């Protein structure tokens, strides 16, 4: 029985990679950056196969409003080839680790004309069927406020204050009832204090002060 199970699991392990050989590539969805700063565009992949030595990464760039994409980076055969003629010459650096399935690049000294879509395509032979993934780069002169941050902050602060006020109110009432503070908030304060020794009040019978008296 056990050997049968072992054999089926080994067989399945052999079958499954054959069927789902698609490689899955992960990049970010959208990146925001300031003019003049550096940004790291990450790209990694998931594959059923072990990382082979012939793994390749390639990045292409399509400016906003343009239809053509140009190739700006290629890694193959253990060597990285960066753009030396296009818009990113001397500004592109490979900071990935292909052995760990990381094909990230670093863009330095961003300009406003760098707005566009960067597409990463990775291949891990024999796992080559996959869909390239794109990340959109937005370069700003001033980083805008993210949608919903102020809204959430205002709502959170107001509700938090409300809860805090309610908690403090009930805490004060509880502490006054327990006679931790002797607070005389009403004009009957003095009379209240005098009669407090004999009054039962909302105090549990195991109150040490009562036992003393």
């Amino acid at each position, binding site marked *: 029985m056990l050997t049968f199970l072992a054999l089926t699991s080994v067989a399945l392990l052999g079958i499954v990679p054959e069927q789902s050989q698609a490689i899955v590539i992960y990049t970010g969805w959208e990146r925001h950056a300031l003019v003049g700063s550096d940004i790291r565009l990450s790209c990694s992949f998931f594959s059923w196969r072990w990382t082979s030595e012939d793994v390749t990464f390639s990045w292409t760039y399509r400016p906003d409003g343009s239809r053509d994409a140009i190739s700006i980076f290629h890694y193959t055969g253990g060597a990285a080839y960066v753009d030396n003629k296009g818009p990113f010459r001397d500004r592109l650096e490979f900071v990935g680790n292909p052995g760990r399935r990381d094909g990230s690049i670093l863009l330095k000294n961003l300009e406003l004309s760098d707005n566009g879509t960067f597409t990463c395509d990775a291949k891990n032979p024999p796992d080559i069927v996959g869909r390239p993934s794109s990340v959109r780069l937005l370069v700003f002169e001033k980083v805008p*406020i993210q949608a*919903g*941050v*102020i*809204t959430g*902050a*205002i*709502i959170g602060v107001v509700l938090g204050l409300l809860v805090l006020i309610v908690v403090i109110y009930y805490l004060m009432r509880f502490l006054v009832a327990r006679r931790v503070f002797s607070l005389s908030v009403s004009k009957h304060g003095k009379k209240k204090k005098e009669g407090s020794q004999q009054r039962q009040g909302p105090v549990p019978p195991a109150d040490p002060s009562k036992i003393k008296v």
Partner: protein
Amino acid sequence: MNFAVIRRRWRRIRLEGGRSRLTPANWSTVIMLVLLAAIFVLHIACIIILLTATIDNAWWIFTAGNMPTDIWARWIFVNNSWHSVDFPQTYPQSYLQAVQASSVLACIFSIIGIFVFVAQLFTLAKGQRFLISGVFQFFACLCIMIAASIYTDQFHTDEKSLGSYGHCFILAWIAFALTFLSSVIYFVLRKKTAE
């Protein structure tokens, strides 16, 4: 409210014969119940109006293309179906989020207020006022006033010929008036038991 007394009253009215007789003694009970129902309905109406004004995206409507917009998204009619699009970058982001936040807070305060009112109905001592419910409605009034004021002042100020204010904007100002009225009623009303 002493519901046991009210129940006994109604049973007595029914047992008194074919036609129920509304004597001056029963009159006060009926009036109190009608008043209670009216206040409750007013509060529910406030909540519904606030929710509509917050959720439905129609504070401003552009006449070109009948395009409703604000405060969460803009709607355009393309290829026989409605699509929601983002706001242009010219919108003042911080004011937009302030309007969103205050209208949401107004809804929250009003909804909490109805539950507090029902709770106070059962727990308040005789002769006391519904202060906390009134406070919640007052905060709702304040918040929706803030939202509507910021919107009136900051948005579409130089586009007056391109469109008109939509139904959500009008509902927001109506909600301001109704919540104010409701909070005043709560501040003035005293709890009486049915004698």
